[in-house]
């Protein structure tokens, strides 16, 4: 055990990764935390937008359908980097315009908040399509039974459609989550100190680029592997009641 810790002492090969300065381990972990925070926040925002978008596209009136169509088409057509740059300057500007019109002072939005909103907005467009497909895969009779027993549209959506579509949606949702954790790296361009930005800084300062990019890569991979497990568990739960394709019962 001591030899392992020794590798992280100043002067050793991995000393630059030590948690205490001059090591960059602390900032890297902080960057990882920021990455996870932004990704989790954006995933919640994006999923909510996706649910609205999917139901809007399927069951909305003409206006709602048009808005949803423009949203998914535009957002999915433009490179995310450009969207992030546009929205990064647009969102604070709009917020401030509203504030000024209300006679309030300008505020500086924290990059974390802007990043969360922007990535969530982009994710919502992809999520809309994943969820729309999953909803369409719910057998019509399941929804009809809800209608036949006097459930309200909201009850049907919440108690029947959403739980049943989840099993169909989760593989796609897991994909989006994995993409999202990596898309947070794009926030480096707006100077948000997430994992990639931090490893850039560390590399720039110490010139040990390979070391820090590899360390960042390993951390991203850990996120993927662990969250992959979680999604697999969630999917198994969502598939309750469905006979396994491999047979053998519940």
């Amino acid at each position: 055990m001591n030899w392992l810790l020794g590798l992280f002492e100043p002067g050793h090969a991995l000393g630059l990764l030590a948690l205490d300065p001059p090591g960059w381990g602390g900032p890297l972990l902080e960057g990882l935390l920021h990455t996870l925070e932004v990704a989790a926040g954006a995933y919640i925002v994006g999923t909510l937008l996706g649910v609205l978008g999917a139901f809007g596209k399927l069951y909305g009136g003409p206006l709602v359908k048009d808005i949803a169509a423009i949203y998914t088409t535009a957002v999915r057509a433009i490179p995310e980097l450009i969207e992030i740059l546009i929205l990064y300057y647009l969102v604070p500007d709009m917020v401030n315009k509203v504030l000024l019109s209300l006679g309030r002072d300008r505020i500086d939005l924290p990059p974390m908040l802007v990043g969360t909103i922007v990535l969530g907005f982009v994710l919502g467009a992809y999520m809309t399509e994943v969820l729309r497909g999953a909803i369409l895969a719910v057998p019509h009779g399941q929804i009809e039974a809800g209608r036949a027993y006097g459930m309200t549209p909201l009850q049907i959506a919440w108690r029947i459609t959403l739980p049943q579509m989840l099993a169909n949606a989760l593989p796609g949702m897991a994909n989006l989550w994995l993409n999202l954790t990596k898309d947070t790296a794009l926030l480096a361009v707006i100077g948000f100190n997430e994992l990639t930005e931090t490893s850039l800084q560390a590399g720039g300062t110490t010139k040990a680029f390979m070391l820090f990019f590899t360390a960042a890569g390993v951390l991203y991979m850990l996120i993927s592997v662990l969250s992959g497990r979680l999604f697999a568990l969630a999917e198994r739960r969502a598939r309750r009641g469905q006979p396994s394709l491999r047979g053998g019962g519940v």
Partner: protein
Amino acid sequence: MTAATAQDAPQERNGTARPGSRAEAIRIDNLHKSFGDLEVLKGVSLTAHEGDVVSIIGGSGSGKSTTLRCINFLETPTSGKIVIGGEEVQMRADGTPASRRQIEHIRQRLGMVFQSFNLWSHKTVMENLIEVPVHVLKVPKAEAIARAEKLLARVGLSDKADVYPAFMSGGQQQRAAIARALAIEPRAMLFDEPTSALDPELVGEVLGVIRDLAAEGRTMLMVTHEMKFAREVSDHVIYLYNGRVEEEGPPEQLFGDPKSDRLKQFLRTVG
């Protein structure tokens, strides 16, 4: 079913004259329904009194399922009048219901049984049975569960309460679906070809449950292909042809002495 229920119910219902004094449970007047240019119902009228078993028979495309599905507005009629338990459904000029609330309220009192069961596949049998009572009718959960257990015993599925529908046979699923319909304590039950999706050897167990319900004096409207069964349990049989009521009457008359050539032809074909 339990013996107690059987004793409470009228023992012999077939062929007895229907007293005209009983209240109307379901009445349809001059119902029209079009799918685009295709007119499926061309003015169907029918009445089911409290305690009646009314069977709707007819060939494929005659409009019998559509008629049934218009009653709880799973299909929106194009025009006509629908009265459930004395309450007329408010419809706009184009046939769409004027009040979603009213439709939901009416649906909560009609127990629908589908051809393909439509049990909610992500819920166990017990969860299926208490879903509507607890979440729609706001019955306390413990009470709903106690009632559901009795119903499961009654349809012979006590051991299946915690099983998901996909792990049961079609006959078991349909019996569970009937129990789900009973769980809302419906004023009337609607059966949409309840045995058509079943393997032949499973039809009997489902018909047995329906037969018990009929004997108990439940109001039931049933679309069926089981002619022998319809003759046995019905108080009134309606033969639909091409979106119209071609002939109707008590089962003995309709099956034993059909007047219309089309009905004679139909009965010869189905056996």
